């Protein structure tokens, strides 16, 4: 190949990244340096789609930001070359860079709520961006263009809705609006950084389908950054697996997902809970046949708000939890699953209905009578960051409930707290360390140890693994299964992730709009769902096989 050929080939590429490295400096000059990206190279041909996958901290989002040189002026040190749509990004001056940003390569961010300015109408924000790249367009024409792209991404009644502010849109609509903003300038490359992570599974499927259609229509290239291998399977041609700032494996999506070469990729794939297979997590499910009823809710109801704007979060729900059993509660956001979970442990008072624990009606007990029962009903929360007191050491956090239960002998309380830390797989020597020194998975272990401290019979786990990476997620689920087996605990496992719930539950209840629409043994609900809502949910779950994924998209398109 002559050098002229080589440069023409390079010019034809949409993205060309050579030996990219990004270093962040924490705490000024004297602080430690973090190498987020370390010698990464890849290319993307026009119209093709590349998925960059990895766990948190792998550097995948840093790569996405480097494509538009969003690191410029932040103090991060960037090395290597980055060419996007014919522009040498790192050498470009401000004007050239502004022309590239949005004009030739547009970016869609993870959290659609915070990614739009809360103070301006959505249509105006799209029009503003459009006019940046097309200064000859009048204000009126830019507004019209905004309405046009909003219509294209499926916003109903777009002329009117263009005047709404972001908080008047739902999560899915906001993500559509961000896609519309990207679309407005007709870019050749779309960079999507975790575009569906904050969304419910059915909405996620809609957004991914939309993304697919837009690409087919405009021929733009796609760089999709995600932690979710299922999302990648149906949306891209090639996959790049990242770990610690380096590429682990790079290849066609079908090959990487079906026949991975690298051990890390295999590990990652094995950790993904499957919605369509028997659970991979051993010991998660207990033996059936335990039939002593532990907790029974009948016609439970909870309302919020005042007289005028009353909403019913949980509406006449009945649920039984037997001894040693795990009941899974699945549903999308706003379905009332968290409210129900909190009522089960009496963190929230039911508006109506009865709640019986071991045959005793506890739904209407006062604080004093409830106290002995409180220690038997405990809760593990979703966000291990905000549910631990940052100013208290992890050991103290675990010891607190022991003291609250009347532990007077401090040496014994501390010893018991250390035992609990050890039980959940943490070193008791870390007793005096603070939450910020730990990873997400370790913090969730602390949360579990704290819930175990009072010696509960029932543990309500509210989205205990949804903030964690897949490998960590698998470890926490393993731990919960072990605890349940060894301590004979009953679990109520609340999650929006259908695969996670399948992996741990004996029975499953599907919630929607404050009601349970379907309930039964896990195998039956997942294998032969009867309610259309359950069927829809299951059909929307991303699968790891690209072909199956394409078939499902076709099915959704015809439905």
């Amino acid at each position: 190949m002559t050098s002229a050929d080589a440069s023409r080939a390079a010019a034809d590429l949409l993205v060309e990244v050579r030996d990219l490295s990004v270093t962040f400096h924490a705490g000024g000059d004297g602080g430690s340096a973090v190498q987020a990206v370390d010698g990464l190279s890849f290319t993307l041909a026009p119209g093709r789609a590349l998925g960059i996958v990895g766990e948190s901290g792998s550097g995948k989002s840093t790569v996405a930001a480097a494509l538009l040189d969003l690191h410029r002026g932040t103090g991060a040190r960037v090395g290597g070359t980055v060419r996007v749509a014919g522009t040498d990004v790192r050498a470009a001056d401000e004007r050239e860079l502004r022309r590239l940003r949005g004009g030739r390569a547009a970016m869609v961010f993870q959290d659609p709520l915070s990614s739009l300015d809360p103070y301006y109408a959505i249509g105006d924000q799209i029009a503003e961006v459009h006019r940046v790249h097309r200064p000859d367009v009048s204000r009126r024409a830019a507004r019209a263009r905004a309405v046009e792209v909003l219509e294209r991404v499926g916003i109903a009644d777009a002329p009117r809705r263009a005047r709404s502010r972001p908080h008047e849109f739902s999560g899915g609509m906001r993500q559509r609006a961000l896609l519309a903003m990207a679309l407005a300038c007709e870019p050749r490359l779309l960079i999507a950084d975790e575009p569906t992570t904050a969304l419910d599974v059915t909405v996620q499927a809609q957004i991914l389908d939309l993304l697919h259609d837009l690409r087919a229509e405009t021929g733009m290239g796609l760089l999709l950054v995600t932690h979710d291998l299922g999302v990648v399977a149906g949306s891209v041609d090639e996959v790049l697996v990242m770990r610690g700032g380096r590429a682990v494996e790079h290849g066609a999506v079908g090959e990487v997902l079906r026949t991975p070469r690298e051990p890390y990729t295999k590990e990652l794939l094995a950790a993904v809970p499957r919605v369509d297979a028997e659970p991979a997590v051993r010991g998660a499910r207990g033996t059936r046949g335990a039939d002593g009823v532990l907790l029974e809710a009948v016609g439970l109801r909870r309302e919020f708000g005042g007289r005028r704007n009353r909403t019913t979060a949980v509406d006449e729900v009945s649920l039984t939890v037997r001894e040693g059993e795990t009941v899974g509660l699945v549903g999308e956001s706003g379905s009332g699953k968290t409210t129900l979970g909190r009522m089960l442990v009496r963190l929230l008072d039911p508006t109506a209905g009865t709640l019986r624990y071991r045959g005793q009606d506890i739904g209407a007990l006062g604080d004093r009578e409830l106290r002995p029962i409180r220690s038997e009903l405990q809760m593990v929360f979703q966000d291990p960051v905000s549910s631990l007191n940052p100013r208290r050491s992890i050991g103290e956090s675990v010891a607190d409930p022991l003291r609250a239960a009347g532990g007077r002998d401090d040496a014994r309380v501390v010893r018991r707290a250390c035992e609990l830390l050890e039980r959940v797989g943490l070193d008791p020597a870390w007793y005096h360390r603070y939450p910020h020194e730990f990873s997400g998975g370790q913090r969730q272990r602390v949360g579990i140890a704290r819930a175990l401290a009072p010696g509960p019979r029932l543990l309500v786990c509210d989205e205990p693994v949804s903030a964690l990476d897949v490998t960590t997620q698998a470890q926490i689920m393993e731990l919960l299964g072990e605890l349940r087996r060894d301590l004979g605990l009953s679990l109520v496992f609340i999650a929006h992730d259908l695969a996670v719930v399948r992996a741990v539950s004996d029975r499953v209840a599907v919630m929607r709009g404050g009601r349970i629409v379907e309930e039964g043994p896990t195998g039956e609900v997942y294998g032969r769902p009867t309610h259309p809502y359950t069927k829809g949910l299951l059909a929307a779950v991303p699968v790891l096989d690209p072909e199956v994924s394409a078939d499902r998209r076709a099915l959704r398109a015809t439905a």
Partner: protein
Amino acid sequence: MTGYALRRLGGALVVLFLLTVAVYALFYVAPGDPAKLACGPRCNPGQIQQVRERLELDAPLLTQYLHFLQGLVAGRDFSSGTAVLHCDAPCLGLSYQSGTPVTELLGDRLPVTASLALGAMVLWLLLGVGTGLLSALRRGGTTERVLTGLTLVGTATPVFITGLLLLMVFCAYLRWLPFPSYVPLSEDPEQWAWNLLLPWTALALLESAKYARLTRASTLETLAEDHIRTFRAYGVRERSVVTRHALRGALPPVIALTALDLGTMFGGAMLTETLFGLPGIGQLLVHSVRVIDLPVVVGVVLGTGAAVVVAGVVADILYALADRRVALT
């Protein structure tokens, strides 16, 4: 929103009622004989007694208070031996000193205080929001350090020091400005502004420091938000990102604080008014306290209280209007 405002104003009435009780009670435990003070230094005991009867000061405390409340709601008549003076509702009573209705006194003084407060507000917003924005953009640089230092000096210096310095430099030494004396706006707008320039500046210097800090903090907070990143990633100029998006996000708390400060200032800026000889409400209060002119003091305190409480409601409503995500309940 209307319902919210009405409910808040209802609460405000309760606060104001409690305020009248507190002020009345305070003044009756204070030393000094109002009748003697109202009569003047040359009165004999007989004359003092006459004054006391005319002013109803011999009546029990509760009766006086109830009469006061009656005047507030329905108006009342005052007899000065021969003539009867009617005082329309809301009647705050007659000044012990001059015999004029308190509402009239307040009405005379209000334009002065309002001129001072509103003019100073314009200045302190320009100064405060300007420096705040500038120091947010030049974070960590020399500009920011200098501005932060200046605003600190501004807050730390009492208004009577700044005011005196201004008077000495601009009126006595440079003679660029007249020694301030109030000229009504309706009479001569130009003279009105020239005479108020120094008091405005003195007040604004004191207040702007607070606004600079608030603007700086909330601009930095907004600049760190995700939507700013979105507009940068779409090639929007840094200048538009800051003025259109960051500043817009920083404004709601500034607007709310302005409303609250204005409310307080309508009760009179005592030090500034006294220093510059402006016949405003603050000056009236200082004078009335000195001579124990009870009805005037009660009137001013009540007026100030009303202004502060109303300003609180207005601040909340303005905040909700500036940030539509806030729902008032």
